[in-house]
């Protein structure tokens, strides 16, 4: 199917159309790529950084109006232990220790956490 479509679209592209495409190869044609970029970066970020069953330290992101006390209380209610504070009051790093990590993540979500990220992965490709 691809071959046939490719034959239609690729091999037989009229020269006039090709010329127009070449002439308009500037700003207009870049938008789809930029849109894909804008969509794909957060998607990759979330997919790659999201905490999973193997996550030891979880960066818990609570709603923005939460203060440190409320965030810590949320972690506590979920059965976790505080490890470190984050940049903002609604972010803390927590762990469940030897407990069930999957259940911990579910509990965090239940208690009102917006995001649970793998704190280890947040070191990025720098390998910190």
């Amino acid at each position, binding site marked *: 199917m*691809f071959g046939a*479509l*490719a034959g239609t*679209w*690729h*091999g037989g*592209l009229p020269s006039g159309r*090709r010329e127009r*495409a*070449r002439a308009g*190869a500037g700003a207009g*044609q*870049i938008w*789809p*790529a*930029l849109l*894909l*970029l804008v*969509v*794909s*970066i*957060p*998607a*990759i*970020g*979330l*997919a*790659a*950084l*999201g905490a*999973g*069953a*193997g996550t030891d330290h979880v*960066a818990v*992101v609570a709603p923005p109006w939460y203060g440190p006390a409320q965030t810590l209380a949320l972690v506590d209610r979920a059965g976790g232990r505080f490890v470190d*504070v*984050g*940049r*903002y009051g609604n*972010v803390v*790093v927590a762990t469940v220790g030897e407990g069930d990590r999957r259940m911990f993540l579910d509990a965090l979500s239940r208690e009102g956490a917006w995001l649970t*990220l*793998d*704190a*280890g*992965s*947040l*070191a*990025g*490709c*720098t*390998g*910190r």
Partner: protein
Amino acid sequence: MIEIERLRVRFGYLLLALLWLHLPVALIVANAVGRDMVAPALIVALLAGAYTLSWLLYGVQPVTRYVSAVALMGMPSLFVFLLAGHGWQMDLHMYFFASLALMIGWCDWRPILMAATAVALHHLALNVAFPAAVFPAGQDLSRVWLHAGIVAFQTVILVWICEMLVGGFNRVQAMSEEIMLSNETLEHKVEERTREAQAANAAKGLFLANMSHEIRTPMNAILGFTHLALRGDLPPKQFEYLTKIRQASTALLALINDILDFSKIEAGKLVLEKSCFDIREEVDTAIGIAMLKATEKGIDLRVSFAPNVPDMVVGDALRLNQIVLNLVGNAVKFTERGEVQIAIRRLPDPTPSKAVLEIAVRDTGVGMDAEQQANLFRSFAQADSSTTRKFGGTGLGLAITKQLVELMGGSIGVQSAPGLGSVFTVSLQLEEGSAARPAKAFALPPDMQGLRVLIVDDNPGAREILAAIFAGWSLQAELAASAPEALAALEAAAEQGSPFDLMLVDWKMPSVSGVDLVRELEHNPKLTRPPVALMVSAYAREDAMTAAQDVGIAAFLVKPIDGGMLLDTIVDLFRAKEGKALPADPPATGNQDAVPMVSAGVRGARVLLVEDNEINSEVAFEILTDAGLMVELAGNGRIACEMVLQAGRQYQAVLMDVQMPEMDGLEATRRIRQSLSSAQLPIIAMTAHAYERERRACIEAGMDDHIAKPVDPERLIATLDRWIGERLAGGAATGEVAAPAVAARPARAPELPDALPPFDIATALVRVNGKRSLLMKLIVSFGEKYADVVAQLGDQIAREDVDEARRLAHSLKGVAGSLELRHVAEAARQLEDALTHRETDSFQIRLSKLDQAMLPALAAARSLTPGSGTQAPPAGPAPDAAEAADRPVLGEPALELVTTLVTQLERRNLGARRTFEQLERVVGADMPALAPLRAALTRLDFNAALIVAHQLGDATKTEETQS
């Protein structure tokens, strides 16, 4: 599609496959590191799907290239973060560099930059933005900057390479376009050159046709007058000179024909005819021609046909004849002693109707080395090209032969060695003819089936051929290789009581010749009944024939032996012997200068000769009248139409020139054909055009046959004989035909002074073979026809009718030249040149010069005109005093006709003949007084006819006055 686009399309396919390949890999990796597999799979599908959609919608346009850059850079990013904390995470960075490098496949620097940007944004987002949002401490970005530096460096390098690549492609494209343009230009040039070449070829063809016409016209005069001259009683020297002129002219004509043939074949204009013919007859005809030379050189010429050769084949007999004649002629030419053998056999062919014949001509001549053989079939090349070569020729013969053979779907080859002779082998594709060979050639009469035949010849080949001929008649001949052997065989047969009836004996044999053998037989007591002796020899020499006749040899046949001729001879001999018929004289050698005559039934037939050239007209007139025909003349097509259509179909045939002023022969024929069909009046083209298309044009115009100039008298007469004979046989004969034309010949020649300046009478007489009457007629005719030529030319020039004037000047030049009026001819030539080149300034000067030259000529011509006072020779068979006394008195109607006749004769109007016929009907055709008038009119001697007509009229008036 240009090359770079092709490359991009292929790269588009590669990326499509590559991006979707990440899906299973991502699943495997996610599973391996214990991560959720759905999200990575969805992200891969998003990236690959976005590219696929763009690729489907926009092909390989920049939009797809940009999308591909983002999609491809997303993949390593995904894998790097999926493997976070894994030992391979850092190693996977190499995949970023590899993917970035892959972008060069688009041959476009912009997707490379887009990819680099995507890499940077991925790292900024995932290494800086996300961690910074979570952790209060700043990130260690030194490694990020290192990576960024490497990516930037790689990007610059890639952009540079990409630009070079694109530049290279552009240059290749430019060169390709240049080559294409150059090719197109070249194609146009080739087309143009082809057109020019075709035009040049057409011009060459036209030139050849014109040259052919121009050459053949004087050739006609040369051959025609030579033919006429050779008929008379000539002193030996003159006879020899004329014979040599004829030989040279014939050779020249053959050369012209060769050149024309060659050019026709080269131009692809030669069309082979397809007719059923007897192959043996054709080959024998060709060999018969070569035999003359072979006999002169003492070369034996032998021909043998294999039994599988069909009797009748379908093909072009003329061209086959030409091929055989060329090969045999060459063989004879290059052979000093020995023999030339021609062997014809049929080669096997899967198609039964096809007859593939092989003709092998073997000679014992000088032979050729390999180099000479290689050049043999090239045009204008001869085996010996040195200026001191022994053998002449144009070198066209074998080239033409080769082309003809190839046209017939065959091939030609040669085997030869210096001093050992040559063998030329030709294969030809013909078709087997359906018509059976005439039975006469095969069947011996039943009463001769029991003949006992002895063949005596020292040459085994000759014996074999003769034996094969007899075997074909179911006669088993016995063979003897020498005279003693033959004598022994004859004696033995006589003793056994079964003597031989016929002996074929060769003339030249070792020790005892054929003549001596026959002489000895006469005196041999043992032979009570010697056989009928028939001598066979390759030497058609007078002494051999005389010797044969002296010893009582019954017949003399010249090799190569034609089976039919041999059969006829044998039948004649034995019938004569039995007292049934026919003398047994040896066949006399034909006198080629004998006057060709039409057959008895055709004599007296009336033929209209339409010819504008006076010389040609005179030649044809002489030949035709000598052949027993009554000839009337027309100077162009218009006159011919008038004469034919007004004459009420009184002609039995028309001989029509093609190129004539006023109305050409083709148009005239078309007009005549509107009233008279071919069955009613055959029209035969007689033209110097030798091209096939000219012949076709004549036939298409309605003519029935075509005779090429120079006219071969025998062929001309034979053609007329056939056409008129057919017509008469078809019941169209008229009473006029019975009148023998020969009776109309003048009894005595008119007088012409020995000197008549400015005419060079002596030289002019040579031109007309000493016929004083003819010359006188021509001079008188010149005086009348060209009396006002200068005024006519002046008028034409004044009317700016230069072409007509040029034609008239040309005609005058020709006639003056023939009559040895050199000043007039020269002046006419100069005027013609001036007219041809449109030198208007010199017209009057030339005309004045011509006028000066013409004056004495016209005066001299007028002096010959009867009644001029200066000289009044009896230009025709003027009646003497006794005849005058017996001259009858004519009645009123007859007198009126005589008056009309006089007027017509004065105007040289050919209608005079019809008036005369009416006169004959009125007074009776048997009136003696009309005989001289009839004779004068028959030969178109208007001057003589005028005298007689005047005398007729005057006698009646005198009588009336006296009474």
